[in-house]
């Protein structure tokens, strides 16, 4: 029997060696292991054997059956794998072809700048407030300590809709006035009011008749110019990097007293002097100061109790400085090629 077993195994191996298709393999399986298969039929001889022989023969027969099944199944796996591989091979694509462009919109560059500033201020407790772009003279000028006849309200600079009454706001400060008035001199104020403003400038690379300001205001009971300095230090570091230095220079605005201009150390040359900072090492980024007592009074706050600071950034200027944009019209024309190329996370920022 042993010989027979080895012989049948050898036969089977030969029979499946060159098979490449599952059907042919199945046929061989039937031939050997089917009801009338060569191996199955061997059990017919069992009847004529002694118990001892049966025991011996049965064991070998089972072994033969198991080993044959394994041979066939292994072969089956091989064939299946080959077929699959062939299929996969046929499905091969050119992975170097261009991808699908996923449509994700980009923010306008100015708006992106504003959102970055908003985030810094909101983290420090400043609310973001909106106000009308068509304003009354009293909010845009009068209550801000700019009385009628004052040179700062020259009609040459302002888009009046109705003379000395209604205008396109020339600054976002009226939002601060409205916010203070709404709190009736009773509550502290902490807000910024980014928004569009309008002045009679001819549009060119550095002028725009429409531009965006980011103004802010903090009114409370113990506020000093030193607090403005500390606050500005944080903003400057967040916007221009941790190594950014700041300085205050005396300035003048009608609605603040004292007034300062706030500079940051040039982030391009790190203060060495370059074309960006006109060799001064410093770049002016905002105007600020302590809220003028007249303005506090006009807006219902008693200046002997309340003090506060106000500041204003030009969004265009910030973005132009920060991202190296040369022409202010970039923001308003929107060349989508530029915008798309600009859609990237800034690794150094937290937003």
């Amino acid at each position, binding site marked *: 029997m042993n010989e027979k077993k080895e012989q049948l195994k050898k036969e089977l191996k030969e029979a499946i060696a060159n098979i490449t298709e599952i059907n042919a393999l199945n046929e061989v399986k039937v031939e050997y292991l089917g009801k009338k298969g060569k191996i199955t039929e061997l059990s017919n001889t069992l009847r004529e054997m002694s118990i001892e022989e049966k025991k011996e023969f049965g064991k070998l027969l089972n072994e033969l059956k198991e080993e044959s099944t394994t041979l066939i199944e292994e072969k089956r796996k091989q064939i299946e794998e080959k077929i699959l591989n062939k299929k996969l091979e046929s499905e091969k694509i050119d992975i170097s*072809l*261009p991808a*699908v*462009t996923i*449509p994700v*919109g*980009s923010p306008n560059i100015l*708006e992106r700048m504003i959102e970055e500033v908003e985030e810094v201020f*909101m983290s*420090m*407790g*400043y*609310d*973001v*407030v*909106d106000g*009308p*772009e*068509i304003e009354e003279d009293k909010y845009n000028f009068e209550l801000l300590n700019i009385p009628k*006849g004052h040179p*700062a309200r020259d009609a040459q600079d302002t*888009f*009046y*809709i*109705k003379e000395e009454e209604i205008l*396109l706001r020339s600054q976002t400060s009226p939002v601060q006035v409205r916010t203070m008035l709404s709190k009736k001199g009773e509550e502290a104020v*902490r*807000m910024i009011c980014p928004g*569009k403003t*309008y002045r009679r400038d001819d549009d060119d690379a550095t002028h725009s*008749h*429409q531009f965006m300001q980011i103004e802010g205001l*903090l009114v*409370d009971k*113990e506020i*000093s*110019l*030193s*607090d403005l*300095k*500390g606050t500005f*230090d*944080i903003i400057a570091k967040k916007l221009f990097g941790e190594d950014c230095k700041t*300085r205050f220079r*005396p300035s*003048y605005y009608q609605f603040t*007293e*004292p007034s300062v201009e706030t500079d940051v150390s040039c982030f391009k040359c790190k203060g060495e002097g370059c074309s960006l900072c006109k060799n001064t090492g410093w770049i002016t980024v905002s105007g600020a100061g*302590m809220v003028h*007592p*007249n303005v506090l009074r006009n807006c219902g706050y008693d*200046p002997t109790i309340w003090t506060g600071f106000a500041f204003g950034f030009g969004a265009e200027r910030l973005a132009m400085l920060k991202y190296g944009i040369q022409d202010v019209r970039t*923001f*308003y*024309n*929107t*060349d*989508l090629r530029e*915008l*798309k190329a600009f859609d990237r996370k800034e690794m150094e920022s937290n937003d």
Partner: protein
Amino acid sequence: MISLNWVKDYIDLEGEDLKELAVKVTKAGVNIEKVVTNDSRHLVIGEVVECSPHTDSDHLNVCKVNDGHTIHQIVCGAPNVRTGLKVIVALPGAILPGNFEIKAGKIRGVESNGMICALFELGLEEKTEENYNKGIAELGSDAIVGENPFTYLGLDDTLYELDVHKHRNNDCYYHIGFAYEIGAILGKPVTLPECTYQKIDENITDHFQLKVETEKCPYYLAKMVKDIKIKESPDFIKKRLASAGMRSINNVVDISNYVMLEFGQPMHFFDKDKLGNKIVVRDAFDLEEITTLDNKKRVLSKKDIVITDGDKPVCIAGVMGGLNTDVDESTKSILIESAIFDAVSIRYTASHLNLKSEASIRYGKGLNYEYTLMAINRACHLLEKYADAKILTGMVVHDTIDKTPKTVTFKASEVNKLLGITIQNQDMEKELDKLGFPYVLKDDTFSVTIPNRRLDMEENVADIAEEIGRLYGYHNLKSTLPKVTTRRGVYVGDVFYRKAVSKRLRTLGLNEVKTYTLTSPEMSSLFQYQTEGNILLPNPMSVDKSVIRTSILPSLINVYDYNNARKVKDILIYEISKVYDKNYKEELKVAALMKGNYLVNEWHQNSKVDFYLIKGIIENIFCYLGFKNRYSFEVTNLKDMHPGMSAEIFVDREPIGFLGRVHPTLKKDEIYVFEFNLSKLTEKNVKPLKFKEAPKYPEVKKDCAFVVEKDTPSETIEKTIKSAGGRLLTNIEVFDVYTGENVLENQKSIAYSLTFADPSKTLTDEEVNVLFKQIIKKVEETEKAVLRDK
């Protein structure tokens, strides 16, 4: 320009480095843009000792010039060069204006070691034909060979070019005022110039009557002088005027300018004999005419102020004198005017007549009345000294000016609180002394009188704090943080919605643009929807920026055009902006424009923008804001929109905007847009957000297709299905719309996939079938639909 030589008349600057001083002054708030000194290196006074014609030229001369040490050979082309002339020599190494370096070299074969200069070549005169023809500068015989020519010319001055903030461009733009500013920084006193003179027995009141008939002239002083001699000004006056950029005319005219540059007070000199005996200051009449000094006829209005001789105008007050009373060579007697006019009025007149001058600018900023008086006396002093004038006794005066001194009462602690510093009383005293502000300190309280020259200062402690702060130095301030409660800021009101929708639109693939509020009448007429009309600016800068928009879409069309012209194929943009109608009604609008492909992959498969995509964007926004099941779209016919591909958008049955394809006559490209009023949504309440579980029991899906009239909107069929299906019908989806073979021409087939589910149990086939049949029957009945066989 401030001349430091001049300032030295009033304050001791001995030993001060003027460049360093400029830095200090700038740091304290008066910005010095530029420090100008004449670069005298390699420039020297020389004497031409020999001069002979160049053999190879018809106009050049070969000169030998002695500079005190050496004799230099220099070739010179000026016609006026001659032996014995004292000249300015630029030796090799000198750098002249325009970065022009003088080098030794040969001119037509003859060695030349320098250049003999004309004034314009040194930047001391304008380069005009006249100055060019004058040739080289001829120095006087008193010029000392070997010395600095700028010293000889009196041009060894240091000039500060100021760029001062508005509030200080009053007192810092005259020399005495500037001296006070330096005094405050250096802590040095200021000495005012001599203002005394001899008076003759005659009294001005015998000659003149003054009448002021306008409130716009609160202060008017006049003095009279006689027997003046018109001649050239003394050198120092000429030089000082030149440093301020003013031309010397004659001694008398120059003195009026000189005093203005000293005290900041403009003056006007009338020829007394031409003027007569009367001065009346009044508002001009409409259309009143005067010929001004520049020989131009000016037409005035009642907003202007005039000085008259009681009859006709002789001067536009504060702006320009009349030709009829001007000082000329033959003038003998002068009436000197020193006055204050209403600043707003002067600004108006100067800009209205386009006559801005040094004087009108100063009047327009306001004046210190003390200097009005000092200046007129100073003018008399100078006229006596340099024009041999005899000064009449007395002065003609009109005075309604408020002379109440401005005072501020405060404690040092208040200043400290504002600045965040801690200075003591004695330091405060020091600072006030430096500023030259008189004060009294009593019971810890300061009472400070603000000098009248500081017109910018008001009676409040903040103004004092600013003065203290800028002298203390802002760089010395500590950085502290406000003592306020800790919280995170929020987006207030509309801002919240604007941000939410904006971010969602970006997520949905649209790019944010920012465009101009002001537009042209043509553009503003496009896409008019529910508007009362536009605001037109009364004084626009240009037609294309003359209208305030009520719709954002025209601006988006501009952005489309801009990008289309640059061959950008896929344009997906939006903007959120406030718009205003002619009643100033504000609306926050959202607008979008989409053209080209949404998903882009040119070689593989694109997904094109169409009506249903832009509709999907809107639905997504509405659902995101909590308006699911509260919006609808209705066919509409809108101007500038494709009549078959546009719809009006309703929320809670209220029309809020529209969407669709732009009319092909407006834009040939397939452009889809929408615009709606976000303010309308922000007014509405939405249900609070609540979690909804997915159905626990299996859903059953059933498909059916109906053949209906082509015009039947799917929405109506869906509504019918919904009402027939009841609460167990959880979803309806359109999965096929078919026209063509097997469907009549005026018909279409729409296939729906219906989802049934019961939240409380598993639905049986029977239950679903009953419902399904019910639905089909209802649709067939109400929509004249025929169920299509599978």
